[in-house]
């Protein structure tokens, strides 16, 4: 069975500090990977997606970057956090066929 793990579960960070959120998928070879951001109001915004190792497509610009260093790993990062980065970050995997996403449990970020 496939599993998806996100870390950390929650963080409180200062404005201007760096951030790194991670996501690992086990039990699935070459998945499509996605980062979503969910604001307090609940709306989901797709940030990045990756079809293969080393390739990441940006959907929106929020002063964030993403990388896929391994087939099963997806990293979201920034060098300088903004207050507007606060929210719930969700990693997901999917397949080219089927159009179904499988989400991790999320990482909650509070920027102060």
């Amino acid at each position: 069975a496939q599993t998806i793990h996100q870390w950390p579960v929650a963080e409180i960070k200062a404005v201007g500090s760096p951030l790194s959120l991670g996501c690992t998928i086990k039990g699935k070879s070459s998945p499509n990977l996605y980062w979503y951001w969910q604001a307090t109001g609940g709306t989901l915004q797709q940030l990045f997606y990756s079809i293969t190792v080393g390739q990441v497509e940006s959907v929106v610009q929020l002063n964030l970057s993403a990388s896929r260093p391994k087939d099963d790993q997806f990293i979201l990062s920034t060098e300088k956090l903004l207050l507007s980065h606060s929210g719930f970050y969700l990693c997901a995997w999917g397949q080219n066929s089927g159009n179904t996403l499988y989400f991790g449990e999320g990482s909650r970020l509070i920027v102060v």
Partner: protein
Amino acid sequence: TQTVSQSDAHVTVFEGDSVELRCNYSYGGSIYLSWYIQHHGRGLQFLLKYYSGNPVVQGVNGFEAEFSKSDSSFHLRKASVHWSDSAVYFCAVSHTGGADRLTFGKGTQLIIQP
């Protein structure tokens, strides 16, 4: 560009009642439609999806959804809700099979009263 609209931000019912959560989409071609559930503070979980065939699709935990091309809708229904169904429900649409442009609605919070 596909869009998806969930007109109800909140729906409140009593336990044991039936419920329908509404979803309308806008896109001229073939699309994939799906529903996801999010319990408070958790990730989203897939409930069901439709692409073609029988317009009524069955999902987990007694949920079903019906596709209507004439109404551009994909409403989610359950005959008898349980308190554990309290969650936010998201409708999603994509015109591709790869989910690279999966567009989510704003979500409907389902509140179950005892």
